Every structure is written in structure tokens, then in C-alpha cells.
């Protein structure tokens, strides 16, 4: 079947670069093991962009890293987002890390992302309400061709929470003892942008540097709490992990708790307030004893 959406994307990116609307655009390209980020500066290279059901990567993290961060200081850049990725861009805007006017967002109408292992649509896509990204500078794709993606996007989180406490402890201690502290999860996270991560502070050294179980627990729990109300559940952290630790379950558990208690989804509204900076008189307070 002809990929009309991809053809239209390439056409539009060529135009945007030719007109100078954006200096560089970050989208999806082809790599050895599937999809990888592709920076496009030359309009002729727009042909190398791809769009398909394997475009899982959330590219928003590149906004706060080299080289886009530097480019954005003096020019506008283009970014391809799915509706879910847009949430991460929104959090970065809310937290004053990027300026909306420096980014030209192309939103892709999305029918869900297929898992690379062939197990169907990803869990994170279930119940998606942003298949047509709203609030981007333009949307590419035909909303008429959408099919609804049913199911529970937190099924894996709930499965772990249903374990008994000893089972859960043993699950996390066995998986986290594999962690080699390569920090791929942190570097892949669009919202882990601290210039100096607390794990790297050595004077004083707050947490154990060693990739031992206790050092690993300290790192992952601190990261989880630092993403409270900020995690957009994109799953980049787990996708990046070379030793298959489902680290996103930790941050998504906090996201789920916040959704259930406060009906708040990080990055859902472009001009919304960060969760920890917002207050509402009828917020539940039954946990204060």
C-alpha cells in the first residue's frame, strides 16, 4: 500500500526547508535495527524521512540536547511528533526549557505503534486520545482512516502492583541488580535534562555511584520521584535500556497514581501548569492524617 502520509511529510519538509521556515528538522529515518532519528538540513534529504507504525521514538529529548539546543538559540527548528510525544514538548515548554515559537511542530496522525517484537500495538498506545495531535503547527495524515485503540495503557504497571510485597521486592531487586548504570534511561528521557544529575555530584556525593543493588535502587528511585507529575509515559527509558529493565513501570506508576488521584496527565495542555506547581481547592487530601 502506498504510504501517502509519508509522501506528504517529505513534501512538506522539503517546502519548509526551502522556504527557510526551519533551519533543521528532526524526524525519523532508517537504521540497522529499525527506526532512528534523522536530522534534515538539505531539502533533498527530506526523501530519507520515514513514517510508519514503527516510529516509536519520542524525539522531544533532542530539544534540550546538542545540537538542537544551540540551533534554537538563533533559529527555528522543525520536529516531528506524535500526539503522545507532543506531551513531552509541552512539559518542556511549561518548565521553560524551550520556547514554543522556536519550534515548528509537525503532528502525525497515528494509528498506534507496533512493537518491534511482533506482539501487536504497544501498551502505551492503548486508550490513546491524541491520535490526531492538536495544537501542533500542522497535522499530516487523514483522521478519517483512524481506528480506535482500546485497552488499558497501564496493564503492565497494574500487573506488577498486584504482586505481593515480597514478590514485588524480589522482582525489582532481581531486575535492578542487572543495571550497569550506563544512564541510557536518563539520557533517553526527554524530561531528564538536568545539567548535572544528582547521581554525578561528588562534592558531596549524595548517592552511591556503584552499580550495586543499593546504588541502583537509589538511582532509579530518585529518578522516579524526580519525574513525578512530569513523566509522559513515552517509554523511551525502557526502550533504551540495554539490559531490558522495565524502568518506565516505575515512573508510569507515579503517573498513574497522579491521574487517578488528581485527574492530571503531564503535558496534556500546552498552556497548563506543571503538576507540582498547581493547586486546586478540591484536591483530595485523604492521605494527610
Amino acid at each position, binding site marked *: 500500500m502506498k504510504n501517502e502520509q509519508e509522501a506528504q511529510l517529505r513534501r512538506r519538509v522539503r517546502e519548509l526547508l526551502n522556504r527557510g521556515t526551519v533551519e533543521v528538522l528532526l524526524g525519523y*529515518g532508517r*537504521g*540497522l*535495527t529499525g*527506526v*532512528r*532519528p534523522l*536530522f534534515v538540513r538539505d531539502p533533498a534529504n527530506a526523501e530519507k524521512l520515514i513514517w510508519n507504525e514503527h516510529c516509536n*521514538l519520542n524525539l522531544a*529529548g*533532542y530539544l534540550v*540536547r*546538542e*545540537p538542537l539546543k544551540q540551533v534554537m538559540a538563533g533559529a527555528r527548528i522543525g520536529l516531528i511528533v506524535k500526539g503522545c510525544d507532543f506531551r513531552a514538548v509541552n512539559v518542556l515548554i511549561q518548565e521553560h526549557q524551550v520556547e514554543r515559537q522556536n519550534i515548528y511542530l509537525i503532528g502525525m496522525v497515528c494509528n498506534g505503534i507496533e512493537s518491534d517484537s511482533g506482539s501487536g500495538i504497544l501498551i502505551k498506545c492503548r486508550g490513546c486520545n491524541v491520535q490526531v495531535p492538536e495544537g501542533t503547527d500542522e497535522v499530516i495524515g487523514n483522521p478519517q482512516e483512524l481506528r480506535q485503540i482500546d485497552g488499558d495503557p497501564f496493564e503492565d504497571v497494574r500487573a506488577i502492583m498486584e504482586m505481593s510485597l515480597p514478590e514485588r521486592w524480589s522482582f525489582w531487586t532481581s*531486575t535492578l541488580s*542487572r543495571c*550497569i*548504570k*550506563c*544512564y*541510557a534511561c*536518563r*539520557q*533517553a528521557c526527554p524530561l531528564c535534562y538536568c*545539567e*548535572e544529575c544528582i547521581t*554525578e555530584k*561528588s562534592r558531596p*556525593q549524595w548517592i*552511591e*555511584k*556503584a*552499580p*550495586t543493588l543499593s546504588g541502583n535502587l537509589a538511582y532509579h528511585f530518585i529518578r522516579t520521584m524526580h519525574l513525578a507529575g512530569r513523566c509522559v509515559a513515552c517509554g*523511551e527509558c525502557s*526502550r*533504551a535500556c*540495554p*539490559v*531490558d529493565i522495565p524502568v518506565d513501570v516505575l515512573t508510569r506508576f507515579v503517573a498513574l497514581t497522579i491521574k487517578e488521584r488528581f485527574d492530571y496527565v503531564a503535558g496534556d495542555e500546552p498552556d497548563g501548569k506543571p503538576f507540582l506547581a498547581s493547586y486546586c481547592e478540591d484536591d483530595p487530601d485523604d492521605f494527610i492524617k
Partner: protein
Amino acid sequence: MKQLQEILSAIGSWQAKGYQVIAPVRRDNLILLARIEDPSLINLDHILTVNTLKDFMLPRCETILRFDLEKACVEPGIDDSLPTIIFGSRPCDAAALSILDSILIGDVVDSRYAKRRGQTVVLTVACSRVDGACFCKSMGYGPHDPTGSDIILLPSQGGYLVRLISEKGRQFASDVGLEPDDAEADPEPELSRRVSTDGLKAWLDSNFEDPKWQVISENCVSCGTCYYLCPTCHCFDIADEAGISRGVRLRIWDCCSFSSFTKMASHQPRVGKYARYRQRVMHKFKYTVDNIGKVACVGDGRCIRYCPYGVDITEILKALVSGG
């Protein structure tokens, strides 16, 4: 020729002689090299394990010393090295040990590494299959290459041929009664990925500053995946982890892509992601060549397979030397 089962059934007797055995096993969805008790759990149905032999020779974390201020004493870390058999790692990983040996048992001897290496016999199982990331041939090795192995098992008609490579391997084989074969092995599997290193060293020698460095490192997010899974990367950090009066001094893997790298010596001199990625390429393909006459890359391809953002070292090497 021996059937795999025959070899596996002998492993128990090696353990009985006091050797610890490190071999590939399945852990959840991964195949990892790990110390095994039960030889029946060994899994050889893999291209490459995620981790490398470095994990066992230069572990990701080890205690160098313990200190206690109240008792005013310093004790060296416990020496837990044991006679070890590595069984079922691949030729590229064994070749990587030969590179680490030249670096860590060179002018300066890393005593902990040297002690472990001295007690280790590497029994490689050569590759019957490769994947699209493998490029060992381009680095001067190959799916059946014996470099770094003490004994290598070559696939042959569904079984394996035993080839004794080093004196240590011959000694071990005679101790445990492992007979060598000289029959012909199956042909090596073909590799689809190739990269030429012609002109690379010369280019690196004279292009420390070049706009290409920024372009080739664009996708990199400065994590440590490629470093920590690399069989030859060997940089480490020293960290003290202490309470009020007692503590330990640890050696922990470190990596030049981290912005905190070498801060212990005052600062990270490589400002900018591209400069840190350049260090990785320079260290592997220039500095190590200058120092020991070999590139610090064996073409195992883990950096390509596991990079979350598709950074591809062979593509980068080609881009660096192409068009001046």
C-alpha cells in the same frame, strides 16, 4: 568431532576440580554471560551475549580497599579471583581480551586484572551464525578466529572440533582430558557488514578539528551503552563510599561520553557532545594504535545493536575518511 552434549557433560568435572565456569545463560529475554552452577542451563543459541568478558576480568564495580578512621586502618579489598573457565563466549570477545591484555598488562600492570587473567582459561565456541551488526572481519578477526582464545571449538557438521591454541589451553586440555581434533571445520559464515580502515589512522592523525565530528555525533545522546557493552572500553572511576568513619574505595566503570568524566582530575576537558564522541573514536582507532599497535575494536557490533538512537560506528568510520 564432539557433540555439544559430550562437552557440556564434562563441565561438571571441571567445576569439581575447583574451576568456576562462566557461560551464556538465559535471563528473562536476555542471553548473558554469568557464573553457572548447572551446566544444563548453558545456552549457545545466540549470536552474542549482551555483556562481555570484561565483566569478569575488569568488573563493573570492585573494592580496592576498606578504611576505618576510628581504628586508623586501611585494608586491601578482598581478592575473590578464582580459577575460571570461560565457556561459550565468541571469538570477538576473546580477541578483545588480547587487546585489554596489551593495555592492562603492559608497561604498567593492573594487578587485579592480571591476576584474574592469569587464572582464566578462555574456551571459545566459534560462530555458526552472524548478524547484520557483526563486522569482525573488517577489524582483522573473524567468526572462527582464535586470537585471545586458549581453546576454540569450531563448528563442524552439527558438532564441534577442539583446537588447542595456547600453552594454557594445552595444559587445561590435558588436565581434563579434552582431546584436540584436526578435521576440517565448516566454512566461516559470511559477513554482510564491511568497513575499510584504509586511510583512517592517517585521517585521524591530522583531523582532530573537523566539522564532520559534529555531524557524525548528532544522534548520540551521551549515554554509556556503547561503552559499557564494548568488550575493549576499559576506563574507570575511583569513588569513595563512606559513612562517618568507615568506608570503601571502589573502582567503577566510567565512560568518556559522560559530562562528569575525568572531573576527579579537575574538570571534563571535552565540552560538547561531539568532542566526547570524538574521544571514543580517537581512543579506539588512533591512541590505542599509537600505544600498542592495534585498534581497540573487534567488530563485535554491540555498539550498533544496542545504541538506542542508531549510532553506527562503521557508517561513521566511512563518513570520516570519505571525501577528505
